[in-house]
Structures are given as structure tokens and as C-alpha cells.
């Protein structure tokens, strides 16, 4: 296990932060929506796609990224955003639709933009992949060594934009890493019902680039694979395609009846929870004491709580402000 201690600690603390963030969001999102679930009600209206269980993907990759590296994320973006270092208070305010939000309440949970750390996401499946290619192109043309990472779901690997982007990235040997989060479903459709190959990293060969699969929702294994990919990209060695097996603990979106999977499935998945595994490993390896771990956990919780508090106290935008920001002046 070659993850340096400081990185592993960062990964652990960040995973805790993500998990707590998503669990707090389950509650915040639920406020005002019941007894009869009403998607448009409460302090956090609209669709809500949470990433509990998928933390390893975000931290395993983002552990190698700098603020000047770009990340594009899909409709399920919180874990990537947190791991990339997005301003958590403003992100949360955005999700609450408030004036202090990253987008002044105009974007919402699926449309978070933090140019400070070069993070963006969006609601259209696979649409962020070409943006990452463009960011990598800019980096190259500007003579920088920044890289760009596009995260997508396994369902997105069947969209045309995926193919076009990978070909372009490979053709121009751009510093792009496409990370496929295989959480086994695209909404209700299991991977074998959407994808003609069992695993997507084989698709790298269609572009003459390296493709790697990381099994078992394992942040440490991913850390190593991502290291190689990021290093190669920074050196000018071109793109890499990575598929990571991961676990979606919650519904596709909050309110998903999940008629398409057995309730036991998630119980089973939770048994290999990476957060607990990393914690135990760190203790076993003597990398961190129980106190240190608790301090990290405490810190993570606090940051999250502060973000929610910030979001809640921020004012709602005035209606008329909807008319601003269509065009830059």
C-alpha cells in the first residue's frame, strides 16, 4: 500500500466529509416534502442525486489533483466537488437556492460551477466530457501542465459524447482522464441491459489509449491507478480511461422507489464500505491513532455543519434577479 500517510488521511477525512454531507442532505432534502412526497417543496427542491457509497472514486482521483486541474462532473456531483475542494458553503447555499450560492441560486444541485478550483458539473449525461477535453486543450495551448478529469457514470459510456470526446482527446494527446463510475445502474437500468461489454475500460482500445479497471470500490487501488494516469497526462503522455466499480447506497434520486433492485442489495454493498475499511487499515498500520481519527471526523463534521448553517442563513434571491446574468456585460 503505497499511499503516503498524509494522502490517505486526506482521503479518509474527505470521504467522511462527503458521507456526512450526503447524509445531511438526505435530511435537508426531506424537509417539507412529506407526508406525501412533493419534489418541489422544502428548502431543497428539485431532483437530488446523492453519492453515498461512491466516495472512493472522488478521493482516489482527486488526491492527485491541484486547484489548477479541471474536474467536470455529472448530475451526481457532490463527492467530486468536495474532493476537488469546491467552496462548500457556497456550494451548499447554491443547493439551497440562496444568493450566496455559487450560482446565486440559478444553477442548483446539478449545476455547480466553482472556477476558483476549476470545477463544473451538469445535468446532461456525458456532456461534461468534451468540456474536460477543452480544458485540457487550453492547458496544452497555454503551456501549462494542468490536467482535466471527466467523471461520468457507467450509463454515460454509451452516449455519443463519450466516444467523440475520447477520440478527440486521444487524437490530440491531451491531458485528459475519463473516470467511469460503475455503480451498476443508470437510474433503473442495470449495466448488462445497457452496455454491450461487461466492463468499459476495454473501450480504451478504440482510441489507442490505456484503459484500467479498478474493482471493489477500493480507494487505495484507485489512488495508484489514478496516479499513473495523472502523471502520464502531466508528462504529455495523453489520456487514460479508468472504470471504477463503486456502490450507490441510495436511490438514483431521492424519492426513487427502487423497484428495480432488491432491498438486500444495498445491505450487502454496505458491508464493503470503503470508509470503514480505510479507517481500520489506518489503525492497523499504526498510521493514525483513534484520537487523531476522531479529530479528523470531528473536523469533517464541523465543516459540513458550517456549510449547511451558512446555506440556511443566506437570503433567498429576489425574484427580479432571475433576469440578470443571461449575458455578461
Amino acid at each position, binding site marked *: 500500500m503505497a499511499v503516503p500517510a498524509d494522502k490517505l488521511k486526506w482521503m479518509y477525512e474527505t470521504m467522511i466529509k462527503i458521507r456526512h454531507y450526503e447524509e445531511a442532505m438526505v435530511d435537508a432534502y426531506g424537509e417539507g416534502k412529506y407526508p406525501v412526497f412533493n419534489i418541489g417543496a422544502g428548502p431543497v427542491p428539485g431532483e437530488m442525486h446523492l453519492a453515498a457509497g461512491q466516495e472512493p472514486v472522488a478521493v482516489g482521483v482527486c488526491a492527485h489533483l491541484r486547484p489548477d486541474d479541471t474536474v467536470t462532473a455529472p448530475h451526481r456531483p457532490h463527492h467530486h466537488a468536495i474532493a476537488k475542494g469546491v467552496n462548500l458553503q457556497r456550494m451548499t447555499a447554491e443547493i439551497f437556492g440562496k444568493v450566496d450560492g455559487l450560482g446565486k441560486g*440559478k444553477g442548483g444541485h446539478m449545476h455547480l460551477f466553482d472556477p476558483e478550483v476549476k470545477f463544473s458539473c451538469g445535468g446532461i449525461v456525458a456532456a461534461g466530457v468534451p468540456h474536460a477535453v477543452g480544458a485540457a486543450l487550453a492547458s496544452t495551448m497555454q503551456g501549462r501542465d494542468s490536467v482535466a478529469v471527466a467523471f461520468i457514470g457507467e450509463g454515460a459510456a454509451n452516449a455519443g459524447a463519450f466516444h467523440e470526446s475520447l477520440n478527440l482527446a486521444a487524437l490530440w494527446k491531451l491531458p485528459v482522464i475519463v473516470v467511469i463510475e460503475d455503480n451498476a445502474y443508470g437510474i*433503473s437500468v442495470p449495466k448488462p441491459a445497457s452496455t454491450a461489454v461487461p466492463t468499459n475500460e476495454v473501450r480504451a482500445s478504440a482510441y489507442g489509449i490505456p484503459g484500467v479497471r479498478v474493482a471493489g470500490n477500493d480507494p487505495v487501488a484507485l489512488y495508484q491507478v489514478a496516479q499513473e494516469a495523472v502523471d502520464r497526462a502531466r508528462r504529455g503522455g495523453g489520456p487514460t480511461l479508468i472504470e471504477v466499480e463503486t456502490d450507490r447506497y441510495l436511490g438514483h434520486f431521492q424519492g426513487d422507489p427502487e423497484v428495480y433492485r432488491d432491498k438486500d442489495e444495498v445491505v450487502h454493498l454496505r458491508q464493503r464500505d470503503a470508509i470503514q475499511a480505510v479507517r481500520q487499515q489506518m489503525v492497523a498500520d499504526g498510521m493514525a491513532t483513534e484520537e487523531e481519527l476522531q479529530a479528523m471526523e470531528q473536523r469533517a463534521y464541523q465543516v459540513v455543519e458550517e456549510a449547511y448553517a451558512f446555506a440556511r442563513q443566506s437570503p433567498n434571491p429576489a425574484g427580479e434577479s*432571475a433576469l440578470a446574468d443571461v449575458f455578461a456585460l
Partner: protein
Amino acid sequence: MSVTSTQRMLTGNKAVAEAIAQEMERDPRVFVMGEDVGRYGGIFGATEGLFQRFGGERVRDTPISETGFIGAAIGAAAEGMRPIGELMFVDFFGVCMDQIYNQMAKIHYMSGGNVRLPMVLMTAVGGGYSDAAQHSQTLYATFAHMPGLKVVAPATPYDLKGMMTSAIRDDNPVLLMFHKQLQGLGWMAPIDASVGVVPEEPYTVPLGQAKVVREGRDLTIVGLQMSVHWALTAAARLADEGIEAEVVDLRSLVPLDKQTVVNSVRKTHRLLVVDEDYLSYGMTAEIAAMVAEQALYDLDAPIRRLAVPDVPIPYSHNLEKFVLPNPEKIYKQAKELAEQ
């Protein structure tokens, strides 16, 4: 409309699903393709129960490949099938518009009428629940502007079933838009208009006929889907104040029933057009322009248009409310217009 207790009430989504089921029963060439149309029953319930009844051969979940499966529906339609494709949200049209517009809409014409594409593309439209810029549009005019497609947008469960049945039986490609709020789903704010009387036996409602859903003498309000229901609410309030608004439900953008609109304007001499789509270059412009051509001298006041004021749909509740039409805004515009 008086509803006796023997009349069957259905939500919008069940009305759509029933139409599809009955046509699948009647015609083995009919089948459905789309994301999550199988076991899930469609994100907006339009295929509820179909997978259980007809199986995965005829109710096909697809990969997230809208160009692929809508294109495949075209290919299958050309070979004698009668596919129904579902584009989950109309907002996703941009990943497959070539198949919708350059292929599905034009092949009949380019072939000189030799190829028929009897197919339906159904899709969910509309906002009002904070789904933001990429999941809340109606895009009515986007599809209506380009020739070769019938474009219909029913506003009641009755029309949803009848127009879906007509669409499936039509030998032309039909884009049928159902409005999310009118599907009567368990997870949307419940509204009365999403439930209505729907006869069990199959029936058709013609594509291309508008309907006067409320008679009035003082002004005409023209709309589609939610804007019709908003207009009816506004009209009730106006009536309390002695203003009788006539409300026209267009139901269909292409073909457009100009006569019903013009007749109404000839009667009321005032026109307000309401749209949940963007204002400029939209449906409100077409209706206004058509009336300005055909009934200019019947107008006693300038035509008014109320629609989304040329901004993407914002996320925050306050912001979205500010840009979407609603009964209150319609009431205000209508009152001013009537008193002008």
C-alpha cells in the same frame, strides 16, 4: 363538466399508459423504447404497467443513447413497425435532434411520400418544481417551427389518452409532449387538473383541433397545457369581477387550428397569449402574428403575450416563480387588457 360517480377517473400518466396498452393489444406492430420505460414504468409514469404486461421485447429499456434508439425507432418504423420512443425530458433533445428533425421529420417528404414513418416520440415537458435550466423547459416552438412533425401537447387525462391513441394510429411521426405536472404523479405537487374522466374503451381525439374550454365574451386567452389551467383559474377570478374570459386550449401546435383562435378573437376582440415556453420567437409570437394577419381589424386592443422572459429556467423557487406564468400574472394581464 359534471362528473357522476360512475365515471372513471385517471391521472394523466395512467391515461397515456392505457392508450399505449390498448394500442399494443390491438396492433402487434406497436412497441415502446426508451430509458427506464421497462420495470420502472417511465420516469413520468407514461409506461406504467406495460413491461409487466407485454414483456421486455415490446417494452424496451435502452442505453443512454438517444440518437441510437430514436434512430432505431425510425429504422423500425420504415420497416412496418409502429414504435413509440420516449425522450425522458424534452430538454435532452439536443443530443438527438438530428434524428428527430433531419430524419424523422423529413424522410417522408424527401422520399416523395414513398416512406412512411408511423411513430410517436413522447417526451416530458415543463417546470415549476425547481429542476432548473436543463430539466424544466417546454420547447414547444422549437419543434413546431420545423416542418414534418405533428406536435401535440394535451392538457387533460382525456385528451392525453385520446391524442396518444390518435398519434399511435397516425401514419406520420408525432411528437407528443406530456406535461410533468399533469401526469398526476405521486411525487409532484398534486393538482386537480392532473386527474380527470377517462373512458375505458379506446377512443381518439383528433390531432390539430383546438378547444374552447371556457366560453367568454370579454377577451380570449390562448394557451397550452399548464397555461390553460392557469388561465382557467385566472378566468374564474375575473368572472367574479364581471370579466368573462374565453379560454382556448390549442392542444396541438402542428397542425395549428387557426380557425378556433380567430373565431374566438372575432367574438371577444381582445387576445392574451400565454406560454410556458420562452417568449421570443415562440408560440405566443405565432398566435399573435397569425391573428394580426387574419383578424387585425377585429382587435380592440394590442395583443398581449405572457411567457418566460427569455432567460434559462432558474433553479431557486423564487426565481423560477418570477419567470413562469401563473394564474396571478394572467389575471393581471387579462384585467388590464379587458379594461384597456
